[in-house]
């Protein structure tokens, strides 16, 4: 009895939250501010700098959405969310959208009632070892001690990988990335495993980066992307197409530097539609016709954002890999703007 009352209250509350969330686009416009759930601090993807301004790959997408919807990339309030609080913060309406390196999985999409609208970074779990261990493939790690964060999907992926390859390992459990890096450097484990982007960032800051290698095997799929509440399709469309506008801009060579020139001189009808010179794509989204132009102008196209935050010019030096455009052998592919 008591339980059913409690569940009833909860579902009523969820229903209320659902009704309230039905028009997130209108809420954001009325508020004049986008509330973006972000990471508490992840190198290259989202963290405040010394002046307290949020910077990073995920943060740039938040700014692009704010520019598209509100016309001003600075009208974003970043709400730091931890691994534990992120989904509740979105479900309860505390944030409008969660752009926080969250992996798109079946249960999160279906059971937790969210919509992942796109994949802005394809990540995967990898291994880092010291060069003098003499290992060149993850399949040679039989019997190794491995530093692994507890309570994450990486722990399960690791177990699956070793079981599938009929190997054994000794886990050294760690609480967070800083501790993992320290334990690994202190020699507490032979290999350190986490998302490949995290490994690259850790390696970049090691005193002897050349003595460490990241093994070629990627043992899991971690499609990271923005997500919104289930059922608010108009808002989901705004996030999805803002993101695709950035990807398409890279494909068509539209950058933050040449965007004005492109808008005036281009003969390509697709670019014209993207930048709002022709057609009324903006109106279909519930925005004005310049939305795509503003989104791209905010921090540049997808490639510019990648290079500025995590690309080869930064100390993290991530290669585009799976995140290259489809025309260059990657997976980033924007559907047509028409």
């Amino acid at each position, binding site marked *: 009895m008591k339980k059913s009352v409690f569940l009833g209250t909860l579902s009523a509350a969820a229903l209320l939250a659902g009704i309230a969330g039905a028009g997130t686009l209108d809420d954001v416009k009325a508020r004049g501010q986008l509330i973006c759930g972000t990471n508490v*601090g992840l190198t290259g993807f989202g963290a405040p700098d010394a002046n307290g301004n949020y910077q990073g790959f995920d943060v740039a997408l938040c700014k692009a959405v704010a520019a598209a919807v509100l016309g001003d990339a600075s009208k974003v*309030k970043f*709400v*730091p969310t931890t691994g534990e*609080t992120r989904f509740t913060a979105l479900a309860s309406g505390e944030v409008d959208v969660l752009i926080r390196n969250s992996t798109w999985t079946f249960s999160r999409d279906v059971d937790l009632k969210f919509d992942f609208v796109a994949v802005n970074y394809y990540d995967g779990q990898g291994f880092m070892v010291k060069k003098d261990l003499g290992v060149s493939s993850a399949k040679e790690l039989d019997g190794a001690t491995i530093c692994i964060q507890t309570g994450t999907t990486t722990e399960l992926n690791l177990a699956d990988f070793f079981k599938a390859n009929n190997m054994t390992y000794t886990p050294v459990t760690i609480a967070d990335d*800083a501790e993992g890096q320290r334990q690994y450097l202190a020699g507490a484990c032979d290999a350190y495993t986490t998302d490949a982007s995290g490994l690259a960032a850790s390696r970049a800051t090691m005193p002897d980066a050349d003595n460490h290698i990241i093994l070629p095997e990627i043992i899991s799929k971690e499609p990271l992307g923005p997500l919104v509440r289930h059922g608010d399709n108009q808002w989901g469309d705004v996030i999805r197409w803002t993101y695709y506008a950035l990807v398409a801009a890279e494909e068509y060579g539209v950058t933050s530097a040449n965007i004005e020139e492109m808008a005036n001189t281009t003969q390509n009808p697709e670019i014209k539609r993207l930048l709002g010179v022709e057609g009324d794509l903006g109106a279909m989204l519930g925005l004005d016709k310049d939305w795509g132009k503003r989104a791209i102008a905010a921090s540049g196209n997808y490639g510019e954002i990648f290079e500025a935050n995590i690309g080869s010019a930064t*100390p993290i030096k991530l290669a585009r890999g799976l995140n290259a455009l489809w025309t260059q052998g990657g997976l980033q592919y924007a559907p047509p703007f028409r």
Partner: protein
Amino acid sequence: MGEFTPFVRTEMLAPQAPPVSQRGAIRWLRENLFSGPLNTVLTLLGLAALLWVVSHLGPWLLHSVWNANSLTECREIIAATWGEGASGACWAMVRDRWHQYLFGFYPSPLYWRPTLAFALLFVAIAPVLYSQLPRKLLLLTAVYPALTFWLLWGGSIWVPVVAMMGFGVFAVVFRLAQPRFGVPVSAGLGAVATSLWWMFAQAPVAAVLQSIAPVTLTSVDSDQFGGFLLSVVIGVTAISASLPMGILLALGRKSDMLLVRTLSVGFIEFIRGVPLITLLFTASLLLQYFLPPGSDFDIILRVIILVTFFAAAYIAEVIRGGLAALPRGQYEAADALGLDYWQAQRLIIMPQALKISIPGIVSSFIGLFKDTTLVAFVGLNDPLKGITQIVRADINWKGIYWEPYLFAGSIFFLICFGMSRYSMWLERKLKTDHR
């Protein structure tokens, strides 16, 4: 026959120094460090441990670097100065980010506001802590919460002023009602009147006053609070609010009235039975589901309220211990003097019970202050984990491990050590027995 002359000393012998083994440093060593085989072994082991720590920590601290722009640069400087392979502390991180450890994301041109509020805190608590100071200072103590709220969050000065008027409403209603209805009923009436004031009169009155005399500071949002500013705001508010609440709960638990006793016991046992982290998650997540959609109930306020409840439940039990330690004769003597319940509590019971409870109360407060770092788990930027995580997310400082903990830890130590010394001083001052 020779005259036998016995030897008679005519002057006193000069006093001799005690033997070497019975004086000075050697005696102290023998008595304190090498008094037996067991103590000798323990001393040697202790010395070895000390030597081990110093030999590891010493060079690391000695090689400290204060001027650098990144961890890599720190390492280069250490390698250049002390040779390859030397390790050293990189305090340049503290130099670069100290303002975030102290103030979080509070806008830097406004740092004077929290600084002033912190300085005024000492002026405001001084008359409470030291009874020999002029009593007029208590006036400042009374307005301090409103003043600090205004300094920290900014906005119109009339919002906190009108909120403080709510307590004025309480006082007036209580004064008027007390002769007729007695203390508990008139306190209830006062509380109802105050809530009505806050709910219905607060906004319009503040708006009217603001239009008559606009006094505003730039407003600062709660999400810009962080670091020790956040810890101190949560800690000080919860400490000062939980003591009166804890006293009332302790009295409620010993009350003869069934309803009051049941409610007090229920509250105390429920809060003590639930971990603080659960309450914080409730504050951060669950409350959002039950509030009307779109209502923005400040996260820091939510956290402060639940931390206060948590501390109050523990303080109540500490004070109940003090009450139980009082001899029955004290209660009977108060009754014999013709004092009513509240007079007896105020003049006889509480001064003694609180004195007995001082060590317990202060250690609860110290624990509470340190527990404020748990707010990191609900996404607030506490100094230990929240800010450290942000600093480490910067590619310049990624990989830094001990320095942030040592820095934050030493500030915590200073504050907690201060509290503990004050409580020892207070105990000595209030000591009336003749042991």
